[in-house]
C-alpha cells in the first residue's frame, strides 16, 4: 500500500515538474558556443517576447562547425538560429543553408553595423548572417621583461613598425635559468597558423587575400607582398630565434605565465589577464605596421543566422534582430559573449562608459578604438575552409624553416585544385 502511495505521489510530482509547454508557445533553438552569459540575455529576450521560448544548445568550439555541417546538410529544421563564424558565411550561402535577412531589418538599422562586418556577412548581395561581434588585435607586452632588458615600452597610442619589433625582439629573448635553452621569448603571434592573424603581413604590404572571384589564389598568395610579409614571419622564428617554433603551448598561455615579452593578440586576452590577476606588469599598444606599408588589422567574429528550413521563421527573426541590434546587442556584449560589439553605437560606449576610465580597463578603450582602424575582413570565399586549412599547413611549414616562396607556391597549387569544384 505504502509503495503504491509513494509511486502515486512520485508520478504527480513528475507531472508537476515536467516543463509545461503552453499550446501557443513557439520554441526556438539556437546553436552556439559555450558562452557563459547567454542564458541571461535570452531570458531578457523571452521577457520581451512571452510567446517565444529559446532553447540554447551549446557545443565546444571545434565541434560547432561539424554540427552545422551535419545538421544543415541533412535538411533538419533545427536548430532554428545559428551562431556563424563569419568567414563561413559564403560557404553556407553557396549551399543555400541560410535564410536571407534583409527584410527583417528596417531602414537605417544596418547602417549601425561596421562596414567590414556587413560585407563579410553578405553573399551575392544578400545579408545572410547579421553582425553580432567583431574583433581586433593589439600588441600586448610584459613590462617587467622590457625593464629587465632595458628597453622602453610602447605608449597606448603608439604604433610600432614590424621592423623595430624585429630589431628588439632578439634582445627580449632570454635564457633565464642559464641551461642553454631559451625559456623566455621576445615576440610572437597569438595564432601562429591562422590567416586571421597573419593576413596583415601580406595585406599591409599591398597584397590581397584572394582574387576578385573569391576563388583564384595564383598570383595572389604567391605575390611579392606575400613573399616579403612571410619572409618577415619566417625570420622571426628561424633567423632572430625570438619566437617559439613549437606551438604545443599556446602564445597566450606563455604570455600569461610570464614567458613572452610581447605578442600580437586579441582583446579577450585583456579580460583574461585582469581575471587571472597575473603577477607581472603589462600593457597594450597598437597593432604594428610595415614602415612603407599601410595599417592593416584583423577583424571579424561571430554573426547570427537563420536555418533556411526553420519552421519558426518569425520567432527566429525576432531573436536575430534582438541580438544584433540596439539594447539586445549591448546586452550581448556586456554579459553574453563579452566579444567586441559589431554595432558602432555599442562600440562607442567604450569611449563614454566610466568603467573604462582607469587602468587596466582603459586598455579595452584602446582596443575598441583599434577595431575601427584598418580593419580588413578575411577573404569571402565559398571555399574558405579549404583555403584556411591549406594555408595553416603552409604557415606551419614556413615556421619550421621551409623556403617561403616554395611553401606559398605549394599552397597555391593545393588551393587552386580545391577551388575547382566551386568553379563548375
Amino acid at each position, binding site marked *: 500500500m505504502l509503495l503504491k502511495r509513494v509511486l502515486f505521489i512520485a508520478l504527480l510530482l513528475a507531472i508537476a515538474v515536467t516543463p509545461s509547454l503552453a499550446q501557443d508557445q513557439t520554441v526556438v533553438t539556437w546553436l552556439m558556443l559555450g558562452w557563459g552569459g547567454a542564458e541571461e540575455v535570452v531570458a531578457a529576450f523571452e521577457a520581451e517576447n512571452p510567446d517565444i521560448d529559446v532553447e540554447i544548445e551549446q557545443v*565546444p568550439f571545434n565541434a560547432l562547425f561539424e*554540427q552545422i555541417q*551535419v545538421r544543415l546538410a*541533412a535538411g533538419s529544421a*533545427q536548430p532554428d538560429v545559428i551562431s556563424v563564424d563569419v568567414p563561413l558565411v559564403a560557404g553556407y550561402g553557396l549551399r543555400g543553408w541560410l535564410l536571407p535577412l534583409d527584410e527583417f531589418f528596417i531602414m537605417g538599422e544596418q547602417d549601425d553595423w561596421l562596414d567590414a562586418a556587413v560585407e563579410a556577412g553578405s553573399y551575392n548581395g544578400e545579408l545572410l548572417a547579421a553582425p553580432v561581434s567583431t574583433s581586433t588585435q593589439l600588441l600586448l607586452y610584459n613590462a617587467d621583461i622590457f625593464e629587465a632588458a632595458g628597453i622602453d615600452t610602447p605608449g597606448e597610442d603608439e604604433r610600432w613598425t614590424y621592423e623595430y619589433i624585429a630589431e628588439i625582439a632578439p634582445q627580449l629573448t632570454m635564457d633565464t635559468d642559464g641551461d642553454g635553452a631559451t625559456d623566455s621569448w621576445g615576440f610572437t603571434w597569438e595564432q601562429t597558423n591562422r590567416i586571421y592573424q597573419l593576413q596583415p603581413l601580406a595585406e599591409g604590404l599591398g597584397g590581397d587575400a584572394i582574387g576578385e572571384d573569391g576563388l583564384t589564389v595564383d598570383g595572389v598568395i604567391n605575390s611579392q607582398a606575400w613573399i616579403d610579409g612571410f619572409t618577415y614571419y619566417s625570420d622571426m622564428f628561424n633567423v632572430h630565434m625570438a619566437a617559439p617554433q613549437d606551438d*604545443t603551448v599556446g602564445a597566450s598561455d606563455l604570455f600569461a*605565465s610570464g*614567458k613572452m615579452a610581447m605578442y600580437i593578440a586579441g582583446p579577450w586576452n585583456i579580460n583574461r589577464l585582469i581575471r*587571472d590577476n597575473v603577477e607581472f606588469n603589462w600593457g597594450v599598444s597598437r597593432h604594428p605596421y610595415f614602415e612603407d606599408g599601410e595599417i592593416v588589422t584583423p577583424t571579424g567574429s561571430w554573426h547570427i543566422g537563420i536555418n533556411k528550413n526553420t519552421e519558426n521563421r518569425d520567432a527566429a527573426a525576432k531573436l536575430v534582430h534582438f541580438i544584433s541590434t540596439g539594447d539586445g546587442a549591448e546586452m550581448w556584449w556586456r554579459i553574453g559573449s563579452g566579444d567586441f560589439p559589431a554595432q558602432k553605437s555599442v562600440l562607442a560606449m567604450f569611449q563614454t562608459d566610466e568603467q573604462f576610465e582607469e587602468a587596466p580597463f582603459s586598455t579595452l578603450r584602446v582596443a575598441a578604438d583599434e577595431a575601427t582602424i584598418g580593419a580588413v575582413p578575411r577573404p569571402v570565399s565559398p571555399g574558405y575552409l579549404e583555403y584556411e586549412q591549406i594555408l595553416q599547413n603552409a604557415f606551419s611549414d614556413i615556421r619550421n624553416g621551409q623556403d617561403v616562396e616554395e611553401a606559398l607556391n605549394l599552397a597555391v597549387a593545393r588551393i587552386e585544385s580545391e577551388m575547382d569544384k566551386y568553379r563548375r
Partner: protein
Amino acid sequence: MSGVIHFIESLNLGGKRSAAETLLVYALHIVVAAVFILPLMWAIAASFSPNQEVFKYAYPFSWRALLPSNFTLAAYENLFARDFGVALSNTFVLGMIVVFVGGVVNSMAGFAFARFNFRGKRLLFVAIILITFLIPIDLTAIPRFILISELKWINTWPALIVPGLANSLVIFLFRQFFEEIPQDLIDAARVDGASWFSVFYRIVLPLSRPVLITAALLMFLSQWDSFFWPLLVAPHPALRVVQVEIAISIGEYQTLWNELLAGSMLAAIVPILLLLPFQRYYIQAITSSGLKD
C-alpha cells in the same frame, strides 16, 4: 621498450642474474615506467593548479611541474559548478542501460550466429556484422541523423541509447565464444527437453562469464568515451555526456587547461575502477576468442 627488456631477460633464461644485470633491468623498467607515468603526474598536478600556472614549469619542462603550484581545488569546483555531476551521472546511466539491454540483444544475436543455421547467415554475418564495424561513424552520421530526426528523437534519451544497443564487435565476440562451447552440452540439454531459451539462459550464459564481462566493458567504455554522436543528437545541456562536458573547457580563445585535465582525471577514474577488478576476464576472453586488440 618492453621488447628490449624481454631481450635482456631472455639472455639469462634459467640462470641467476648477476647484480649488474638486475640493476640494468630495473633501470630500464624505471625508464619505461617514467615515460608512462610522468605525463599523468603532470596532468594530476596541473589539475590542482590555477589555470595561469599550468605551464609555469611545464614549458620548458622542469621537475617542479610534477607538483601543483599554488595548490587549489578551483578546477574541480568550477567543473561541478557547471553541471559536471549531471554529465557524469547521465553517462553512467546511459552506459548501464546500453550494457544491460545491449547485452541481451548482442548475446542472443551472437548465439544465433554460433548455433543456428538459417538462410543468408553467412551473408548477414559478413556483410552486416563485419563490415559495419569497419565503417567509421562519421561516414554514416548524416543518414543516421536524418533517421533520428524523422523519428523526432532529437534531444531525447532514445537517440542516445538505441543506436548503441546493437554492437557488431560485441556480437562478433559472443559468436566466437559461443562456438567454443561443446555441442554435446547443448545437445544433452535439448534431449532432456530444454527449450532453446533455457539452453541459452541455463547452459550457455553461466559458462560465458569472461565474455559477458568483456562485452559489458566494451559496451560501457564505448558509451563512456562517446563524443560525436551524443553531441549531434542530444546537444541539450540536460542530456550532456561527460566527454562533451570536458570539451566545453576548450574555448574559442582560451583553453581552461586545469579544468580540462581535472575533468579528464575524473572521467578516467570510472573506467579504471571497472577495468582493474575484471582485467583477468577481459584478457581471457580476448585471447580465447582469437581477437587481438
